[in-house]
């Protein structure tokens, strides 16, 4: 039995210990806000937080996630919207929106490490997250606004 703690809720799993956390979240728990994009940690659509830091859930097995605090987009804010989500809305970032859960989780993690990120910091922190619609300049603007910086 693998013990998991997702969004503060404990659960146990006796399936394949190699099952990627992504599919445990989506297919087992029904937490579909975390998306499948590539299965190889190449696109960032599956980004969640493990003990507060961004990880790729498609390349993290449930056994590796056991004993850690996993947080998904559904629980990133306890009350209402997270400030980063608010900026995402203010800057009208999403087009199709499929990658944006991962983008937001990555951005929150980046801002924890670099509260006032430079353009280089943002490039470095966010370039693992692909947006095929091409919303990058709005993502950059929203991150800067969340950091209290002017574009």
């Amino acid at each position: 039995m693998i013990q998991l703690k997702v969004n503060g809720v404990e659960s146990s799993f006796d399936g394949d210990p190699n099952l990627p956390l992504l599919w445990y979240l989506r297919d087992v728990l029904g937490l579909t806000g975390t998306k499948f994009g590539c299965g190889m940690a190449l696109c960032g659509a599956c980004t969640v937080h493990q003990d507060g830091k961004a990880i790729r859930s498609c390349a993290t097995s449930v056994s590796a996630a056991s004993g850690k605090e996993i947080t998904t987009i559904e629980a990133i804010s306890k009350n209402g919207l997270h400030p980063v989500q608010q900026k995402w809305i203010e800057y009208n970032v999403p087009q199709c929106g499929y990658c944006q859960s991962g983008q937001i989780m990555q951005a929150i993690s980046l801002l924890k490490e670099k509260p006032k990120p430079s353009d280089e910091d943002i490039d470095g922190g966010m370039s693992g997250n692909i947006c095929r619609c091409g919303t990058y300049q709005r993502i950059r603007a929203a991150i800067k606004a969340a950091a209290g910086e002017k574009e």
Partner: protein
Amino acid sequence: MSDNILNVSRRGFLQGLVSAGALVLSVRLVPEALWAADTAAGSHVDGAAFHPTVFVGIDSDGTVYLVAHRSEMGTSSRTSVPLILADELDADWKRVKLEQAIGDPKYGDQDTDGSHSVRDGFVTMREAGATARLMLTQAAAQKWGVPVSECESDLHVIVHKPSKRKAGYGELASAAAKLPVPKKEDLTYKPKTKWRYIGKGAVSYDLQNLCTGKAGFGMDAHIPGMVYASVEHPPVLGGKVKSYDEKAPLLVKGVKQTIPIKPFTPPHRFQPLGGVAVIADNTWAAFQGRKKLNVAWDNGPNASYNSDEYRKQLQETARKPAKVVRNIGDVDAAFAKGGKIMEADYYLPHLAHATMEPPVALADYKDGKVTVWTSTQNPQAVQETIGEELGIPKENVTCHVALLGGGFGRKSKPDYAAEAAILSKAIGKPVKVVWSREDDIKFGFYHSVSAMYLKAALNEKGMPVAWLQRSVFPPIGSTFALNTTYADGGEMGLGWTDLPFDLPNHRAENGSAEHHVRIGWLRSVANIYHAFAVQSFVNELAHESGRDHVEYLLELVGSPRIIDIKATAPENDNYGGAPAEYPLDTARVRRVIELAAEKSGWGKRKMAKGSGLGIAVHRSFLTYVATVVEVEVDDKGDIKIPSVHTAVDAGIVVNPEGTRAQFEGAAVFGTSIVRSGAITAKNGAIEQSNFNDYPVARMNEAPYKTTVHIIDSDAPPAGVGEPGVPPFAPAICNAIFAATGKRIRELPLSKA
């Protein structure tokens, strides 16, 4: 939203967990709004107190239900099209609830492609809105016993002007429902000065859900008792299964069974490719099961397809006389007179759509009927394709349209939805088919590989007196009919038979090319390679003539005038737009060039070493676009894109914010094409597989800032989803030439 359905769904879902090996100790981890369940709840529009057309229903509480009959893949169609109706109805957008239409011919054309949702909707939605508004006005007049002419709408209420009496839309709904639906000729339309939303726009109806993980994409669809499937497809188009291991996949924990899917009957159209499906109780187990199938394939004749050899064939064809698709004057006679002759060959590879959400569909077959939830651009094609595959009437297929995690043309083709339906029928359970990224890259409907040859004779001023252009590519028609090797008039109209230049002698040709993979439309389609060749060639001619590109381009376009395309290219269909409404107007071509040049500081900026500006102009989907790209090229040849300025004349723009986003995104899409996009085949199989070997632009590679300049226009609305893409590639390549002197005639740069 029906809470019952969601509740049932949740209960079933939790039961399903046991079989997946989980014991959940929590309550309610399932998200609030599963969109697939929402659409199953039945139509609020049809159930409303007043619903004069299929697109609008008004309830007694004043809630206005509007149907979004086009798909949402990120282009704002789902918001912008109903917004037109809301404007004409004079409804309060805050009191509007959208309902996504299932596939049904009663909504007319639902195919969300070709950048025509707003263009079509502008007529249909205004008619529906004006109909409902007139009936509400009549109901109010009747209620008060006053002439209709004394009443008018004012944001969700009807006002009797002389007495200032007011009645809300909800209050009037039941009475309005009893009135006869007025004739089209009795409708009146709001003047532009009274538009509330058209030209001002609205943010996406789904914006907050998209930022909180609550939006329901096809990937998120779920119904009780469903199982997951993944399909091992033939690596070569037309390949067949010879044998496979039925037992080994069952050793993977969670795998339930394997099921063969028959190969398609040519032409392939939207039929599934065939292969072997693995059914499992979670997606990943299905993926793992496939690795144990050990399929032996009969690859068939397309196993001879090799990109390098095919490229040589295309380029040889491009150098030989071909089918004439547009003719002005006598090019051959003009070339025979001599003058300076310029020639160039251009080449672009196949591209894949690589939507962030790979193809996915959930289908439930019961008693000769199928219900499907999927990310589709064309729900009626889902009905037709599944109907044909299962031998049932298309009316027996109900297609719910989820949000799409990107479309770009891939999701107009419902092969994946048909797979889900076939499998559901075979095993008697709801089946969700999930394509992996590798499936998506290897089994696409690819953007055509293309070779173009251009030749011009220049006069003493450097202007062309003769211009020949030949384009060769496997046509989209090959997907629908056997032995199709030439493009049709529509495909040739994508930037090839509609050159807006003032040329005394001009001939456009199309050479024959066979397909060996599935060919489909991808965001802006043939415009990509046609604009690349033409707009790059213009830069070559301007440079050869020692002229400034913008000044040269304006002279080439010539005086403001309407070009009668049909007169010289009879099969050009002008994107289905009537020439009277949507003429090819060189004044508009000139205006976008001038605006992009002005805004980018063309001719006024001093460019540093290794920096340059490039321009291109292109009309597609009836929209005029000029783009100026700034590049910085370092000593190693690495490229940065500090700025892009795009000038857009799309006629009346309903949603400026959504439109700006489309052109910002098009610059990034164009960056992918230029930097790295290439699909190649070896022995008939696609060589790329995922974002490692089919890279798309990331934040650090994308333009730093794209500024979109929308021209205010009263012309009928045209497209905005696609037209930003075609001018980007030639503009950036012209900029690289300005910065480095290096001429680029083939893409992507990573392979050059």
